[in-house]
């Protein structure tokens, strides 16, 4: 496994006080907060900060880590094996584990798995170690996001997702394992909703159930339409004559082709509702509606005929005031 220089991660010196570490962690957490940061690796950097803070903000873990750092090859990124009984004389409770959020280095040294390694018998689940064999505790839930197209919400979809988890192998070593899950997403999901994959979170202990994996649904931005709950909004451009005289317009909606009857008389901001043509319902929830937002689009005056047509239009409406509120 690779050695982790937690001081470097938090950008503090080895002489940093606990207050310095707290400040550095918060500074980094603000920079890489998932709701704020635009960095592509913000999630990973936040996980690194959490891990470094978890060790350096705990006096016992920090002392053990400092002792370990004096070993040869204890350099950031270098292959590293801790000596036997490296943590003798230190007392710290287990942390993290099983979420896939921690590095192998952390899991091996400070994670729940670390204590499982020292306990007799590999293969023991490490979500609840330290509470005694008779304590039953359900596994914790895991969270992730899944990005879908709005069309997926109409038809249902299948996605292959990769989740990471830590376990102990037959030799008693901590292994971060990646699992691929084939997830069938039913139709009718909408943004902000969660999909539960039962039993795909942390393992339970003592006969208690495993945790769940909760996937938060996000929709990819699409220039054609957007969703608000189960309602879908689609912009449809109209020519001036369609807008003023009315027309039957064929529209490709997420649910298929639809004939839309546009009433005569243009009004800015007008929406037409196609009831039940939004995202399909599921369970006891009804389907959403599809709202057509009408837009005016003008043909270019880039030919003699085009310019003549606009001149004729102007001549036909000599009293027309396009800017009555401005008085010009």
């Amino acid at each position: 496994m690779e050695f982790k220089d937690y001081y470097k991660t938090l950008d503090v010196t080895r002489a940093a006080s606990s207050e310095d570490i707290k400040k550095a962690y918060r500074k980094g957490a603000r920079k890489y907060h998932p709701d704020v940061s635009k960095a592509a690796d913000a999630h990973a950097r936040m996980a690194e900060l959490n891990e470094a803070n978890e060790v350096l903000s705990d006096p016992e873990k920090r002392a053990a880590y400092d002792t370990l750092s004096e070993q040869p090859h204890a350099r950031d990124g270098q292959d590293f094996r801790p000596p036997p009984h490296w943590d003798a004389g230190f007392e710290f409770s287990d942390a993290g584990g099983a979420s896939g959020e921690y590095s192998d280095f952390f899991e091996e040294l400070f994670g729940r798995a670390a204590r499982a390694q020292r306990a007799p018998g590999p293969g023991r689940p490490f979500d609840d170690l330290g509470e005694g064999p008779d304590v039953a505790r359900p596994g914790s839930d895991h969270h992730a996001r899944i990005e879908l197209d709005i069309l997926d919400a109409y038809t249902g979809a299948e996605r292959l997702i990769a989740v990471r988890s830590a376990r102990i192998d037959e030799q008693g070593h901590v292994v971060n394992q990646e699992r691929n899950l084939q997830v069938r997403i039913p139709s009718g999901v909408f943004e902000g909703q969660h999909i539960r994959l039962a039993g795909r979170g942390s393992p339970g202990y003592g006969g208690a159930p495993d945790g769940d994996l909760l996937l938060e649904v996000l929709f990819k931005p699409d220039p054609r339409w957007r969703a608000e709950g189960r309602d879908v909004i689609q912009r449809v451009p109209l020519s001036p004559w369609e807008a003023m005289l009315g027309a039957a317009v064929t529209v490709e909606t997420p649910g298929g082709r639809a004939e839309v009857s546009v009433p005569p008389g243009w009004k800015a901001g007008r929406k037409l509702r196609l009831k039940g043509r939004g995202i399909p319902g599921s369970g006891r929830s009804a389907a959403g509606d599809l709202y057509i937002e009408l837009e005016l689009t003008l043909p270019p005056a880039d030919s003699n005929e085009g310019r003549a047509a606009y001149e004729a239009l102007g001549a036909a409406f000599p009293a027309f005031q396009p800017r009555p509120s401005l008085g010009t």
Partner: protein
Amino acid sequence: MNMPIAPSTSSTPATPATDAPAEVVESQAFTVDALARACGVAPEWVRTRVEAGVFFGHGDAGSWHFDSVTLVRARRILHLETVFESDPQLAALTTDLIEEVARLKRQLRAFGVTVP
């Protein structure tokens, strides 16, 4: 924190895909206990936040139910409270602003503006 769903480095090769039955969480499906479990906190943490108006539950006091949007909000507030040791109301205010920015970005996208 969310787990990454994109493939990431691992110590062992990825296992073949296994089918994972998916269940859509319907509206107001989370009880106090279920929301607490999903956030990894004690139910008391949920109760005190609802009573303080940090987030809202449907139904009668004490037997509230929560929807998916509240789960996202609760986890955001918990993250801010934990990382910055912030007062719950300050975490809620920050979350209000995060949600408002997200709403405005959605509106901009609806007008065809490219938003980072």
